[in-house]
């Protein structure tokens, strides 16, 4: 089954059983906030207040759906591009962005909302998701792990090993590939010669499905069903969402070197927010008042983000040495003393 319409990308799929209106209203709210976070973060980079930001602008439906279909006890494994998914799962956006502000690597407590630290080495988080899910299963817990990666990430050896382990151990993992057609500058055609990335499930005995990654109801439906299959003993699931990276890889990237603007323009009409908004408006459940409330909430989050990122960092040199091991080695204590001595001499008149 594919929920990806080949030729009608600007409307939504006809789902037999579309998500309830209130669920979709919540999605829209998340989408609007998500977009706002993306754009705010982008602006903060331009202002030099964030070092870099890999935006999910245009991919927000994937982001929101990946988190929205999870229970609080489920685990999310995000990449560097999935800040917004982490936020929907509960992480404070200021904490989620502290890595990119230059503060400590993982700004949040992964155990609080069951969101793994965002992972940069591609596909390496996927075996972790299998481990978390397998451990939960051994303990009889109903946890599902949602493991995200990009189209580029599917080429790494760890993608292969993770899917195979999950299949062999029948671990409750949903592998969610956000196919945004690019890995930095490298287009999908250089990444795979397979008919789709969902076909990669076949070699592991994992059911694979494609879905329009800019169709919020379809995503909720497909990912929600996958999570429930995984939870109820159906083993791992592979979902490929076809979406598009609307901006450069990060603000440090220059996409004009490898793709024409016209390619991007073709995707503007498929914007997931526009599509969900018109769907809900047509159904008569989205009022101006609700829209206004959503916009206000998004503005509030953006302000919180701005303020949080503006906070001056308190650099504590001890932090360098405090977390390497649970008990610092004598070597690290000596090294910390070197810095302490330097700083005290600097501070001295």
């Amino acid at each position, binding site marked *: 089954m594919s929920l990806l319409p080949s030729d009608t990308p600007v409307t939504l799929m006809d789902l037999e059983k579309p998500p309830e209106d209130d669920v979709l209203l919540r999605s829209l709210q998340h989408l609007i906030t998500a977009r706002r976070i993306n754009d705010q973060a982008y602006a903060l980079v331009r202002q030099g207040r964030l070092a870099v930001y890999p935006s999910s602008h245009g991919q927000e439906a994937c982001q929101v759906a990946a988190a929205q279909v999870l229970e609080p006890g489920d685990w999310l494994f995000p990449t560097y591009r999935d800040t917004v998914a982490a936020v929907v799962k509960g992480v404070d956006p200021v904490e989620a962005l502290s890595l990119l502000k230059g503060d400590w690597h*993982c700004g949040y407590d*992964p155990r609080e909302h069951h969101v793994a630290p965002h992972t940069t080495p591609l596909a390496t988080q996927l075996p972790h998701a*299998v*481990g978390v899910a397998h451990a939960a299963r051994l303990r009889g817990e109903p946890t599902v792990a949602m493991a995200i990666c990009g189209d580029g990430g599917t080429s790494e050896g760890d993608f292969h*090993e993770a899917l195979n382990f999950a299949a*062999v151990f029948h671990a409750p993992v949903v592998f969610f590939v956000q196919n945004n057609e690019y890995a930095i500058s490298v287009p999908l055609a250089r990444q795979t010669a397979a008919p789709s990335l969902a076909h990669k499930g076949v070699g592991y005995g994992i059911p694979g499905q494609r879905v329009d990654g800019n169709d919020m109801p379809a995503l909720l439906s497909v990912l929600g069903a996958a999570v429930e299959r995984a939870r109820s003993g159906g083993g791992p699931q592979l979902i490929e969402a076809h979406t598009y990276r609307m901006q450069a890889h990060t603000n440090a990237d220059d996409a004009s070197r490898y793709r024409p603007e016209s390619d991007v323009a073709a995707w503007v009409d498929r914007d997931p927010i526009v599509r969900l908004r018109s769907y809900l408006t047509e159904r008569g459940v989205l009022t101006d008042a609700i829209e206004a409330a959503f916009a206000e909430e998004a503005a509030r989050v953006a302000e919180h983000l701005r303020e949080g990122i503006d906070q001056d960092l308190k650099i504590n040199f001890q932090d360098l040495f405090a977390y390497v091991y*649970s008990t610092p080695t004598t*070597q690290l204590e000596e090294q910390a003393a070197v810095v302490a001595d330097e700083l005290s001499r600097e501070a001295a008149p």
Partner: protein
Amino acid sequence: MTAMVTHEKLSMAQTLNRALRDAMTDDPTVLVFGEDVGPLGGVFRITDGLTAEFGETRCFDTPLAESGIVGLAVGMAMNGMRPVVEMQFDAFAYPAFEQIISHVAKMRNRTRGRVTLPMVIRVPYAGGIGGVEHHCDSSEAYYAHTPGLQVVTPATPADAYTLLRAAIADPDPVIFLEPKKLYWSKDEVALPDTGAPGIGTAVVRREGTDATLIAYGPSVPVALETAAVAAQEGRSLQVIDLRSIVPFDDATVCDAVRATGRAVVITESAGFAGVSAEIAARVTERCFTSLAAPVRRVTGFDIPYPPPKYEHLQLPGVDRVLDAVDDLAWEQ
């Protein structure tokens, strides 16, 4: 060494197996997995009987993929388990290198201590068994150079037990390097309390006053043998067994070298930028004024591990160590 009356003559393979069994008995979150560790009991039989005793959810075979094995362990450790994984041979841990360097070593630090990884990666390592290529690598330097890892290697059956139990109990990851050629060496051991110290402590294996031999893992018996031969020639060599490469026991090592004023470091691994270089450098930094001669290194040559019929030329042996000792400026 412990003065305790020992109860059983056991090989290192047996005490490692006992350590796993006892840890699994004491703590239901301890899991063992890897390649062929289940019904076969591992190619060295270190996990012998564990699947039969604890069931195959506690000790199980995985698909053949080392990065997957270590990655799975990371995830399980994130979620309440204490995985002990086996890499089948030293060189077959290399596919897991990214997981080890970028995750195992860094998870605690990058999450500011919020996610800890109590896990052990067991690696049979080093040579001396006539193994073919890729089965005899001394890979300790790769791990020892990586901040965030603890690197431990026993040289006796008693240490094998105590250090493996300590590694499994440790809140942080441990690379546990097992010298293959010592798997079958036997010793009287009292279990579970061998009297051996935990991770981070070196021990003096033999007292001596003229020079200090510093060794670990497979090189400890070489050092002891050298000291025995030297004693016949009238030279009193002290032998230190590091046991733990990271954390490094500066106090024990430096006290020893300051007392003798001379030191030889022995490792099987290639010398260049290896652990022997670190030992020589740090001992020199800390004991310079006590040194009558530069710290000498006797190491494997800087060549890929050679074929079986050539390995006797590669491995540091008694004569080569004695030559190094002879070089320690005795005329002064």
